[in-house]
């Protein structure tokens, strides 16, 4: 019998705030892609603008490293394990 990974329980409002933040991010990207809101840059256009400068590239690479470190290295377990 497989043992499930223990998940710490947190107040529901915390999850709700994260959902709201990510929802806002994707909603903003969706609005930018529709071209109906003037000159709203998409996420890729924003990244392109940031990556024009060395410090912007460092910051984005650091963000990528931080994300990858948490997902794949720190406290790693097989991703499909429930």
């Amino acid at each position, binding site marked *: 019998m497989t043992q499930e990974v223990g998940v710490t329980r947190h107040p529901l409002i915390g999850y709700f705030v994260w959902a709201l933040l990510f929802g806002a991010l994707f909603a903003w990207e969706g609005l930018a892609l529709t071209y109906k809101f003037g000159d709203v840059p998409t996420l890729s256009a924003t990244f392109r603008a940031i990556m024009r*400068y*060395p410090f912007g590239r460092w*910051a984005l690479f650091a963000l990528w490293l931080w994300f990858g470190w948490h997902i794949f290295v720190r406290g790693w377990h097989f991703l499909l394990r429930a």
Partner: protein
Amino acid sequence: MVVGYVLIMGALAIGLRLARRSARAEAAGAAAVTNPGQPAGQTNPAPVSAPLATPVPAAPTAPNAPAGVPPAREAGRVTARARLRAIAAPEPGWRRFVIHYLGTAVGGYLLLMVVIIGYYFGISPVAGNFVQSAFSGCALLIGLATPVFIALSWLVERKGWRI
């Protein structure tokens, strides 16, 4: 909280300074291309008394060289600058690719380490081997991603792959 604020503001200040410096270097490079005899520090110094709209004619015999500097020394300075620029940003190719990649990877790695150390010692000491894991884990990620990135770049640039 104050430490976090100082870290973020410091990072933004460094970024702004780098951006302004690179813009200034680009302007100096453009000035050197149009007027090779002129040093980078002296980009079209218009006379204070002259109106801004009045173009300053360049003297054909003395191309805005500072007084007292021999032409040979001036030419040597320009050549050294061009050589430095060629080392920092060479022609498109593998050398430029490696320099660009190494600069980004090392810069991003060091930036993340600075932030993590600042967070750990200034804001909240996270339990476990947080800092050691950050150093080794991020280096491992770069080591794993580098050959994949180089292989994909080669396939896209040399073999015409579409990703």
